[in-house]
């Protein structure tokens, strides 16, 4: 996919001229900016967890092949199945083969699934696919793109959200609805779908190599249903999410929630294999109340190449909390219109460089102010502004 700076700017200017877009972003920023500091003030141990995760990520990234092997063995022990996809096409093929066609599929929010175009791909195979995270569902309904990593519908006002839900889901809402009315209508709509779904697709906040566990953090409760109700659960995630131990993986999810400003998280899910029971004659049977199959699809899609590149390597530590977006003056005015087709803001520029190539990231880098607010807040101490300046060099080498 080619990205051209001038085209990105055209889109940004469309956003600047849209008062509803600007107003929605501005409202969210005033609620979210600096929120991680309040979390850390109330729960000072978050700092210890942050340092633990930072070390765990460094260790895992330096020995990625070792930890992938360990993860494969751990998952096998747990009766889960590991798949490895080199790129977008391979990931789509794996998902296509696992799901087939004519199925009902529910997605919890996964930015990696967005990166790989998985929802659209499964739809193209004749499956009915529903997003279940409220924000992500709104994005699906408007045929749009996530505008923030943890808050994908940040650009929509309540009026716009209500219009989408009314028109696209055909549900009734009061004439001036409150957020509660929309949430309640969507809950009613999705209940039946969860119950009938054949496959649940989730992402993963972190993956533990030593136990083969997938850790997921959430507030809505949709991840519990997506990963717990359908008979097949497929988790899709990047190789950089692997950390050595389950202890690290749980800390990872907690730090992500703290820096997202949503702490304590309402739910923390640990999934180490298909559901099972040994209640009858102590013989283990897989497929109890939850899924009978668990598949973990690990994605490379540029990540290994980035590991070898000093200009991108550090960014693989990113835990995608979205904190840099909440603090970035450019993002405050553009949301994810700046950063790439999937990811946005300072971290987005670098994820775009990792997943779509440095040339693509370079086009976006030129809009970075270099103000370093992102560097100040990044829990993984990624020198974002310096890495982005490295991409500017790529851009400017072609004048």
């Amino acid at each position, binding site marked *: 996919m080619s990205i051209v700076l001038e085209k990105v700017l055209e889109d940004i200017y469309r956003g600047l001229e849209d008062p509803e877009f600007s107003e929605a972003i501005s409202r969210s920023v005033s609620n979210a900016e600096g929120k991680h500091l309040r979390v850390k003030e109330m729960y000072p141990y978050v700092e210890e967890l942050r340092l633990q995760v930072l070390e765990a990520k460094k260790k895992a990234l330096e020995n990625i092949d070792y930890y992938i092997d360990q993860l494969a063995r751990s998952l096998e022990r747990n009766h889960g199945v590991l798949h490895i996809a080199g790129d977008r096409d391979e990931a789509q093929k794996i998902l296509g083969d696992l799901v087939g066609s004519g199925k009902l599929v529910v997605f919890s929010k996964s930015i990696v699934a967005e990166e790989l175009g998985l929802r659209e791909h499964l739809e193209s195979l004749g499956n009915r696919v529903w997003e279940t995270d409220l924000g992500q569902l709104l994005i699906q309904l408007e045929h749009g793109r996530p505008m923030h990593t943890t808050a994908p519908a940040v650009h929509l006002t309540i009026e716009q959200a209500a219009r989408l839900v009314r028109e696209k889901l055909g549900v009734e809402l009061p004439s001036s609805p409150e957020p509660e009315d929309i949430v309640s209508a969507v809950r009613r709509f999705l209940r039946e779908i969860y119950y009938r779904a054949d496959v649940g697709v989730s992402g993963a906040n972190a993956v533990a190599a030593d136990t083969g566990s997938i850790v997921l953090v959430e507030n809505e409760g949709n991840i519990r249903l997506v990963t717990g109700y359908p008979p097949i659960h497929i988790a899709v995630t990047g190789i950089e999410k692997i950390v050595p131990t389950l202890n690290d993986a749980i800390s990872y999810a907690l730090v992500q929630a703290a820096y997202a400003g949503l702490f304590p998280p309402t739910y923390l899910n640990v999934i180490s294999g298909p559901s099972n029971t040994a209640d009858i004659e102590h013989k283990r049977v897989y497929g109890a109340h939850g899924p009978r199959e668990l598949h973990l699809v690990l994605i490379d899609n540029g990540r290994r190449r980035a590991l070898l590149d000093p200009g991108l390597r550090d960014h693989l530590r990113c835990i995608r909390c979205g904190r840099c977006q909440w603090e970035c003056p450019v993002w405050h005015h553009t949301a994810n219109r700046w950063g790439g087709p999937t990811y946005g803001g300072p971290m987005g520029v670098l994820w775009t460089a990792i997943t779509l190539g440095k040339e693509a990231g370079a086009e976006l880098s030129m809009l970075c*102010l270099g103000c370093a607010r992102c560097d100040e807040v990044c829990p993984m101490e990624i020198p974002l502004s310096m890495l982005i300046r490295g*991409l500017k060099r790529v851009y400017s080498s072609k*004048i």
Partner: protein
Amino acid sequence: MLDVRSILRILADNIKRTGLPVPGDQGLLTSWSTGLGLSEKGDTILYTGGLYQLLPYIEEFAEYLEKLEGGKAGGLLLKAAGRLGRLANLSKIVVRPSREKLEYSRQVLVSIVELLRRAGVEIAYPGGVDSYSGVLLYDMGLDTVFVEHARRVAQKLESVGAETIVTVDPHTTHVLRKVFPQYVEGFAPIVKSYIEVLAENIDKLQFKQGDAGRVVIHDPCFYARYENIIDEPRQLLRRAGYTVVEPRRSGRMTYCCGGPVESIAPRLSRRIAETRARELDEAGGGTIVTLCPICYSNLRRAYRGLGIERDIQDLSILLYRRLGP
């Protein structure tokens, strides 16, 4: 839409030809010092890096770009100028700063010199050495041109053998202190912002007695986050009798004025400046104090665009006004 690579080509070409990002000569950088009786030689020298002097020109350029950006001809005109090598002609159209803006830049530098003198700092100004630092090249990733330029600047600076180089703006301070040593082998002088030097000698500065009113401080990103110069301007303002009002997003987490993208995305830059201008306006203080010529220019432009009347002054001007007899 502007063609960004053409803008970068114009910038790089200007610097290669004249050493400055806009057309002009050395006089543009040094004329402010005429009649101040500054010595050419000394252990401590002033190096302005030219941002204050160049800013009126850069500002005009940015305004011109914003107008171009609005029309379809913008990209084509820039591309044609780049291709035909008529950069000087294009620049002549662009650069016509007002007398008022030029005078303000001069006053800032004169005030800085007077403040340093009153603080007991013997400062020399080898005018022939003063030059543009090349910071814009660095910021835009034009590293090849930057490195050549930085070597020339460093050579000139080293030729005068000064122990300490005093700078006047955050970008020049950062580029000289942290960036030059990475690119120019052996370049390791002591580099200090005039604000740090004044704070070190604060007890020697005699200010007028009495309340000087409230000022809202706007920390520049490069001082606050790159150079950790946060307390010093506050100490100086308080000593001069001002009450310092902190806006939302101040100190270490200060907010950008939008300046760094003004030549690439003028409308985005302006919106960021307007956001900042509004929050400074809402801080409940009086005059807004800036410590960087880019912030000064961008915020001033933002207030004009918003139709808000707000007094903005450079730190040096506010401190100078309060100097005692």
